[in-house]
């Protein structure tokens, strides 16, 4: 018998695990047909499914409907807030899967690019009972629309020697904060607001290009050097110490074949040398975080990278200073942002100087690569003499 999905079947070949085989393993046959049709027509047959969700929540469920209702009608996506660091016990997962198989398609996504645990393909009428049961197992729904999105964090101190902050604890504290959860589940902002937490400037959670607010571990004092281990690396032949020294972007290192020295004042904590020689080098002890603002992937003015707002902030539970800063920015943005404008764009449009002035932060030379090169600026009221009258 000829296959009903000849095109998709091609994607079952080859060594990489096949998403087509995965779809086939589920009972989500409507999707299989629709997906094949998409391949045949070289276009999607999905359309937006309008507002669907669970009572009390205005976000976190992505409405999906196909334009070929004969094949597949409504089949929505639910975003669950993932646990910190994407850690799971099989016990917890098995229970969720049980419920998902009962109410939904059985197709899952570990994880969405923002970080959520996503389950895809649930008819409208099943959403509420499914969530009722999932909630009892402590699975809460994540973000969508103009809200505080589900954050994400790198593995941090759980398994990484570079971690300068407790990424998991910060994440969990934020994601269980009532204000934040309220702002996640009831969108009120001009657009989405994403937070990512990396334990060090390596940025393994990709915050700089993708998050509106980035918390990135760093340290103020000196890189710790174990000279013996440096020599071991050099001797082992596996690590070329000279080459690393040469590649240091600030030329802050020197190596005489026996002793490595680092000019910690010049070092920008790029993490290159530490990552190449983790046995020998480690972050200092005076740890905290750099706070960056304004990243996003696309947008009216193109992509933005998040930039250094606060060079260094000590971070201790309950992270009150952090949360206050975050809400200071959110409030400013809420007041000044236009529809569909991310905070970085609002700052861009209004001007970083004005933004800092408004939120009461000091301008610092570390915020810029270089000062402005054009004379087009304005004065705050009071800076300029007006006519006496």
């Amino acid at each position, binding site marked *: 018998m000829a296959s009903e999905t000849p095109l998709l079947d091609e994607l079952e070949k080859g060594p*990489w*695990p096949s998403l087509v085989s995965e779809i086939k393993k*589920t009972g989500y046959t409507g999707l299989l047909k629709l997906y094949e049709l*998409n391949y045949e027509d070289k276009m999607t047959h999905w359309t937006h499914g309008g507002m669907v969700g669970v009572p009390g929540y205005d976000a976190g469920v992505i409405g999906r409907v196909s334009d070929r209702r004969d094949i597949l009608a409504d089949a929505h996506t639910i975003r669950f807030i993932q646990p910190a660091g994407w*850690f799971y016990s099989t016990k*917890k997962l098995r229970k969720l899967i049980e419920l998902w198989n009962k109410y939904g398609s059985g197709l*899952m996504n570990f994880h969405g690019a923002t970080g959520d645990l996503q389950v895809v393909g649930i008819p409208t009428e099943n959403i509420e009972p499914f969530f009722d049961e999932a909630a009892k197992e402590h*699975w809460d729904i994540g973000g969508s629309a103009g809200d505080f999105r589900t954050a994400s964090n790198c593995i941090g*101190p759980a398994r990484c020697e570079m971690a300068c902050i407790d990424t998991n604890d910060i994440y969990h504290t934020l994601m269980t904060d009532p204000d934040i959860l309220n702002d996640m589940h009831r969108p009120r902002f001009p657009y989405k607001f994403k937070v990512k937490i990396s334990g060090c400037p390596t940025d393994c959670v990709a915050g700089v290009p993708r998050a509106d607010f980035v918390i990135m571990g760093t340290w103020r004092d000196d890189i710790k050097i174990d000279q013996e281990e440096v020599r071991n690396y050099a001797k082992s032949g596996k690590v070329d110490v000279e080459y690393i020294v040469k590649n240091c972007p600030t030329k802050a290192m020197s190596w005489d074949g026996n002793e490595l020295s680092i000019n910690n004042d010049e070092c920008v904590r790029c993490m290159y040398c530490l990552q190449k020689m983790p046995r020998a080098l480690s972050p200092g002890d005076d740890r905290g975080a750099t706070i960056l603002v304004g990243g996003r992937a696309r947008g009216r003015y193109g992509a933005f990278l998040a930039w250094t707002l606060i060079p260094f902030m000590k971070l201790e539970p309950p992270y009150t200073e952090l949360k206050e800063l975050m809400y200071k920015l959110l409030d400013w943005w809420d007041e000044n942002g236009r529809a*569909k404008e991310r905070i970085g764009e609002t700052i861009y449009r209004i001007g970083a100087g004005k933004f800092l002035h408004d939120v009461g932060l000091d301008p610092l030379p570390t915020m810029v690569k270089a000062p402005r090169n054009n004379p087009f600026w304005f004065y705050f009221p009071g800076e300029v003499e007006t006519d006496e009258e």
Partner: protein
Amino acid sequence: MALSFDELDFGPPDYKEMLPPILERNYGKWKYHEEIEPGVYKHVSESGEEVYTVRAGQPKFIASETVLKLCDLADKYANGYLRFTSRHSVEFILDNKDNVEPLKKDLAELGFPVGGTGRTVRSIVACTGWVHCHTPATDSPGLQKALMDELYDYFVSEKLPTRLTIAVSGCLNMCGAVHCSDIAILGVHRRPPKVIDEVVSKACEIPSMIAACPTYAIKPKMIKKEDGTTLRSISIDGEKCMYCGICYGLCPGTPIADPKNDGVSIWVGGKISNTRGGPAFSRLAVPFIPNNPPRWPEVVETVKKIIDAWASDAKPDERMGEWIERIGWAEFFERTGIEFTHKHIDDYIFNIRDMNAGARVKGRELKKFS
């Protein structure tokens, strides 16, 4: 029965209850790590304890049945815990070195490739695409599969100068976060949405559409019909529209998908981490390749060509963008045989800063371009 408000807003499950015990014991005490082989890390704690991580790639979507199988492996080898990474690999964290090989064997049986550490291609980040989204110009999950089949060897063994990140997004919303990747595949629509006036007038909230368009390309329009009645619809300014498809999300009367003109673009040289030169955007390599499902051979081939040009010449630790910066963009186009076109020259907001200010042209280019 709906939950009462009090029972809402409880947040994610507590990670502390799901942390492998060895990680809990050594939390914040890690001293160093070593890559044992592709896909396997050893982390050593101050306490002397060692932990072994086995990392495997997975497809963009996965059946609950398969997740249960992963759970079985976690129960068997990893004390009932598993985790996923920021690039969507799955990781098993072992407190017993002897479990590494059996686990690898079982994963191989399940069809899960172990790799993606060190000097490898990393797991491709892909968005939803044709599987479940309404705006794609191409199918990211399918492209992920087609590419990874071809690059499989680069994932399971270390043959590259350093890591290589690839991301795929079905459209310029860039949910696959493509814009800072070593190689990025981005679906492109090449025409603004069509406007089907009848549908717009019947099914759509025109003011919300106008407000939602990020480029202010949508204007209201009134059509006088022959029978004397009027029809309220919209018009889209083709010079302003960025082909984001957001209006289609609000209104079935403005479909953006266009099989004749949708396709794929390729970008190169982006980077995320602060290491060395710091983060950088990916830059346009190929503006357009028509969609050729189910396996997009032209895209796969071009990606392969780019990787080969880089891999054969880059120095250790030199990411794609760092390599191009060293050899120069003109040389990149020369070596990959990719054509440089009008579209490579930025005509968007910041373009002037990307022009080659001054007369700094390499000797080889002076000869070539005259």
